[in-house]
């Protein structure tokens, strides 16, 4: 997807296919990845409660956004139902806990697998569709699932919602943000590395081939139906994991959180971050989650000058998301990651332009 070539250090040649396929392309990238991991591990010790809660939310939504990027960015399928799958994961994990007493640490991956199964079922009609028709089919999935959440008392608690217990590790409760952060971080790293590695496998390349030209892919022996459903399954798995983590973080799940607006926000995250980019999904998630808060701060500080701003804060937050989607698509359709690559390349090549 990137039109900017990856700037490599001088004399760094690839002499084998294995070397060309490594996860970290350069030594700098390896160092950066480990440094990033170290900073995240240390974050709960230094960060304030506010920073920590934002990091947890970015982690949770980021996992789901990574999943959606597998579907949209890699396979080229569109889903307007990701928010509902996220919600299904949340309810599934809460339900496993209350109905069968499954501890959260175990119920999170099980909820992920249940959501995978659901995603594959909804993926079956999707296997024959693409583009607009697929968007509308997944929109229907969103509404059907929303209706299911409102109706299935035994599963979701209906309109009153479902409680989800806080996680614990071998009797050690993970009931503070500080300890829960590590649980989210664990799943985040697993998802991130998993999706990044997916592109190094045959299946991952098959998905990209389906995106780039589905007919050519089929001619080359890629089973379209299988890979489209597989892609729905993978994406739902991460949505389910994210949803389950969300449920146990809040301690309470209610169906109002998983509307079409959430699905749109997930799509906005990966489009603003950069379609088909693993790091971009995370950047986009951070952008979409932090934008409303920045707008709120800005509107509140303007409220002294324009009193009308104060009552409009909620609307301004919503409008900013809509406006961000429109502006990014017009001015930077390749997303934040593209901008980042440009910045990096210009540093690397300074003082020449290429």
């Amino acid at each position: 997807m990137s039109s900017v070539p990856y700037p490599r250090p001088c004399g760094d040649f690839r002499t084998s296919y294995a070397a060309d396929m490594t996860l970290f392309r350069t030594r700098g990238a390896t160092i950066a990845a480990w440094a990033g991991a170290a900073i995240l591990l240390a974050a709960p010790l230094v960060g304030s409660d506010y920073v920590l809660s934002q990091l947890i939310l970015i982690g949770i939504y980021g996992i789901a956004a990574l999943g959606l990027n597998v579907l949209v960015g890699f396979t080229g399928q569109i889903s307007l139902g990701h928010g509902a799958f996220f919600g299904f994961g949340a309810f599934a994990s809460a339900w496993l806990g209350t109905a069968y007493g499954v501890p959260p640490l175990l119920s999170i991956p099980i909820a992920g697998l249940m959501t995978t199964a659901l995603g594959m079922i909804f993926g079956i009609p999707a296997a024959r569709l693409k583009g607009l028709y697929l968007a509308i089919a997944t929109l229907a999935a969103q509404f059907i699932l929303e209706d299911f959440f409102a109706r299935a008392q035994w599963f979701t608690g209906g309109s009153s919602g479902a409680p989800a217990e806080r996680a614990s590790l071998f009797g050690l409760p993970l009931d503070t943000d500080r300890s829960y952060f590590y649980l989210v971080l664990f799943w985040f790293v697993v998802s991130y590395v998993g999706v990044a590695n997916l592109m190094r496998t045959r299946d991952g390349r098959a998905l990209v081939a389906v995106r780039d030209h589905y007919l050519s892919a089929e001619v080359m022996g890629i089973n379209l139906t299988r890979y489209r459903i597989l892609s729905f399954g993978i994406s739902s798995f991460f949505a389910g994991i994210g949803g389950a983590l969300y449920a146990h973080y809040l301690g309470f799940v209610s169906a109002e959180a998983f509307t079409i607006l959430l699905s749109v926000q997930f799509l906005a995250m990966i489009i603003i971050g950069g379609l088909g980019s693993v790091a971009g999904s995370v950047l986009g998630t951070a952008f979409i989650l932090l934008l409303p808060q920045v707008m709120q701060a800005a509107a509140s500080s303007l409220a002294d000058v324009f009193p009308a701003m104060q009552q409009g804060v909620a609307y301004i937050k919503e409008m900013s998301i809509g406006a961000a989607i429109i502006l990014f698509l017009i001015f930077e359709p390749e997303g934040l990651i593209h901008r980042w690559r440009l910045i990096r390349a210009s540093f690397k090549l300074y003082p020449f332009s290429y």
Partner: protein
Amino acid sequence: MNWGLLIQLLVNGLIVGMLYGVVAMCFTLIYKSTQVVNFAQGEFLVLGAWICWFFIVKWQLPFVVAFAFALVFTTIYGILVQVVILRPLIGEPIISVIMVTIGLSIFMQALMNWIFGTSAARFPQVFGSEKITIAGLNVETAYLMSFVLSLVIMVVFFYFFRYSRYGLAMRATAYNQQIAQSLGISVKQVFAMAWAISALVSCVAGVVLGLVNAVSNSLAIIGIKVFPAVIVGGLDSIVGAVVGGVIIGLLENLAEFVDGQYLHIGNMYAVAPFYVLIIILMIRPYGLFGTENIERL
């Protein structure tokens, strides 16, 4: 079996279905001539209704004048949206186009909530509220008027595309943009015109709905209801859009009837169209009247 209720519901379904058909027609018009999927169709409709309401209630203008103002306003707005937001996206992949209209719909929804408030507002009486009895059925005058208006819009559409110069230009562009351009048709103008007409007709539908019920931002749900209708009819068929709208309107009320009388599940009215949508997509991925795309390498 409660025959009276069933027939009453079916008549309601037919009338509401005609309105769905009109909105679906606007949707198909944009899709056919500009290959853009307008997820903000419902918001266009609400915008028209609010503008008309604003002029009547706040400026105390007579209905006809306010209605004319609303029409002019939404038409200009439609053209602006096309030129400013969608023109830069020509040639981008379909997901970008879908997302930009979704972004537009979020933006408009929030803005209208801010300006006009979140509660529903009533129009002053324009049509009488008395009921007319036709063959033993109670039909509100406002409903009847909306039915007639929908029919009029459809007939105008038919003649516009069949005989007028601009209608022909739009059909030519929908058929093949390059050939249309080489014959001297300004594709830019056609695109702007498609959005203008669509916004204008949405405004009419919005005002009618506002008169029948009340104006509120929840009317935008029609923009979502339109999807089952256009899929049933096939995305690129204007006749299909009308048929699809009527089918969905009837289906909703039929589901309501079956549910209320026998099943007692609740909420079938809102969800049944989406089940039908999935089933139709599984059997005929191109809708009942849509053209099947044959792709070659």
